[in-house]
């Protein structure tokens, strides 16, 4: 029997993704536009608590702040269950404390960040300004997997992917959405996961006790740890990195965009390609690690690349780094904290 289409918001899709990924615990704090993820999880947990075994029932804690929420997630994963948190903006900033620990100790932290206007309290609505935070916001070198969802159904899929990647590769995983996506109610067909990575306690409960440290006395001993983490990152990054190309086969000009802006760009490209010059879209699905091989492949045939984002060049910096040295012209179209409609993208490109 075919799966039925359902009509859900991005935030509801995030909750369904976490449940279908096997998550058991959520920590959270009210913050627009992610609050509905906590509320949705709480509602599901209350439904589940009546019937489930203690070992499989869904649990949650609304903490005193996002710092406690992030460290709560770490506590749960140390005990061998899948846990996550959801936040945005200033809450995402506070989560950097626990993310740094996750990065260092290779803990499977999963966070869903619904970007809002920044800096500071900014707006509660929308932005793509938390890319830096998600990828590089701690006091380390950014060994975090960052995904960017471009639709309600993809948000569901990427939440599941985040849990799988975090538990398989042991890097913290952040799914970036935004306030528009969280609130958009859309007809979707959810693709259920094929496979889920199993859980295991990280404080291993064996006779030989586990000793986890994140503080080192000498640069050299810490350097050894970092080198190993970096080696693991480099070994696995091409398996982790994901991207999508759209109408790039005959494209003369490339657009690079992520998240909901990429969805608007697709719509704009459909209109633009009715005219002579052909456009294509490269859409990173992971922002970190960036899927550089297909990006370079597409970019080598191109003279001009438009990088379009709702931040001041946070995506652009990542893209330009990967394409450094290529004889291509970059045009950055940046609208921090404001969205782009397909028509606005089309107009911005035509104006250039």
């Amino acid at each position, binding site marked *: 029997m075919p799966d039925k*289409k359902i*009509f859900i918001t991005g935030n509801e899709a995030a909750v369904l993704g976490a449940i279908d990924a096997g998550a058991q615990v959520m920590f959270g704090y009210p913050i*627009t536009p992610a609050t509905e993820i906590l509320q949705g999880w709480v509602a599901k947990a209350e439904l589940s608590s009546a019937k489930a075994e203690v070992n499989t029932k869904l649990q949650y804690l609304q903490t005193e702040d996002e710092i406690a929420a992030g460290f709560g997630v770490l506590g749960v994963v140390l005990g061998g269950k899948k846990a996550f948190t959801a936040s945005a903006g200033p809450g995402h900033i506070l989560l950097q404390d626990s993310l740094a620990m996750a990065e260092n100790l290779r803990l499977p932290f999963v966070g869903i960040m619904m970007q809002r206007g920044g800096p500071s309290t900014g707006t*509660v*609505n929308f932005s793509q300004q938390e890319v830096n935070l998600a990828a590089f916001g701690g006091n380390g070198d950014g060994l975090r997997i960052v995904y960017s969802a471009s*639709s309600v159904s993809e948000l569901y899929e990427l939440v599941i992917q985040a849990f799988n990647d975090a538990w398989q590769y042991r890097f913290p995983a952040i799914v970036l959405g935004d306030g*528009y996506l969280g*609130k*958009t*109610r*859309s*007809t979707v067909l959810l693709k259920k996961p094929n496979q889920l990575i199993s859980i295991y306690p990280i404080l291993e409960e064996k006779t030989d006790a586990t000793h986890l440290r994140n503080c080192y006395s000498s640069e050299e001993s810490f350097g050894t740890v970092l080198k190993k983490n970096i080696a693991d990152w480099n070994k696995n990054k091409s398996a982790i990195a994901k991207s999508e190309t759209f109408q790039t086969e005959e494209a003369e000009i490339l657009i690079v965009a992520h998240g*909901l802006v990429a*969805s*608007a760009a*697709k*719509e704009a490209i459909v*209109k633009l390609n*009715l005219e002579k010059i052909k456009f294509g879209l490269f859409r990173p699905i992971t922002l970190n690690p960036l899927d550089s091989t297909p990006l370079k492949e597409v970019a080598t045939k191109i003279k001009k690349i438009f990088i379009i984002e709702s931040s001041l060049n946070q995506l652009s910096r990542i893209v330009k780094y990967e394409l450094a040295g290529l004889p291509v012209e970059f045009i950055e179209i940046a609208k921090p904290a404001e*969205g782009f*409609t*397909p*028509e*606005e993208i089309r107009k911005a490109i035509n104006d250039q």
Partner: protein
Amino acid sequence: MAETEGSIIDSSPRQSEAQNDTNMELATIKIILAGEGGQGTQTTAKILSATAAEEGFEVAYIPSFGVEQRGSPSIAFLTISSNEIRYPRFDKADFAVILQERAIPSVAKYVTPETIIIFDSSTVSSKTFRAKKVFGIPATKLASENLTPKSFNVLVIGVLSQLLNLPAEKTWQMTVQTLGKKFKTEEIKEKNHQIFLLGKDFKLEEDNFTEPTFVPQQGAIETKGEGKRAIIIPDHCKSCGICIVKCPFGALSFGKKLGLFSMPIPEIDLKKCTACDICSRFCPDGAISIEKEKLD
């Protein structure tokens, strides 16, 4: 006055005339709803979009509002299509539903001369619009007269089900499903059903629009007598009712005049009032003041 038969669009979204770009565009309708926080704009959008989704259309609905819970523009973007909808917001609306005059600046940029406007003629002046097609319904007036101003959005849902050619019974069921808890008794539910049907069957005004009288009275309302002077400022009054419950003498009650949210504001019986100042002390909005008249 011309009568409109059936719905504004000829049939389903597949034959919308509004967009002419490509064949694909013909299959999509874009609707913007503009109200104020507390009016039920988002609930209306949610119910209509959910009904359209049940009917098998591709639907995207996204609300747009600020941080305030009440009293500032509440906008909804609704896209109904036969094709995949990639992005939930748009630049030009095929339909604009105007439920609150103060929300108009927030949606002005989405309205073109081609946009079909549906507006609450009991609170918004028809002279505001220059579109080709403008349709009015005195929604606040009808809701207030038939049931309560709070059922305003049920009426609007009825009207829009007519407009969008959504099956009436399914739209009503979706309304019950969504608002069920607010229909505390069978009687209230049935009365709301009547309001829904009133909206659904309403022949929209195309000219000779109802006068927009369901608006806050301007200035101040002064009541004098019994050695006292009471002043109420309607466009500061949010009809919260606190002064009424706090008055130790029962001198205040909801009257007929309207306040900031087009809801009734208190009127005073100066025979019962002692100018104790409690109402003024409590009023969260500084909308009422009583003083004893000075004797010359």
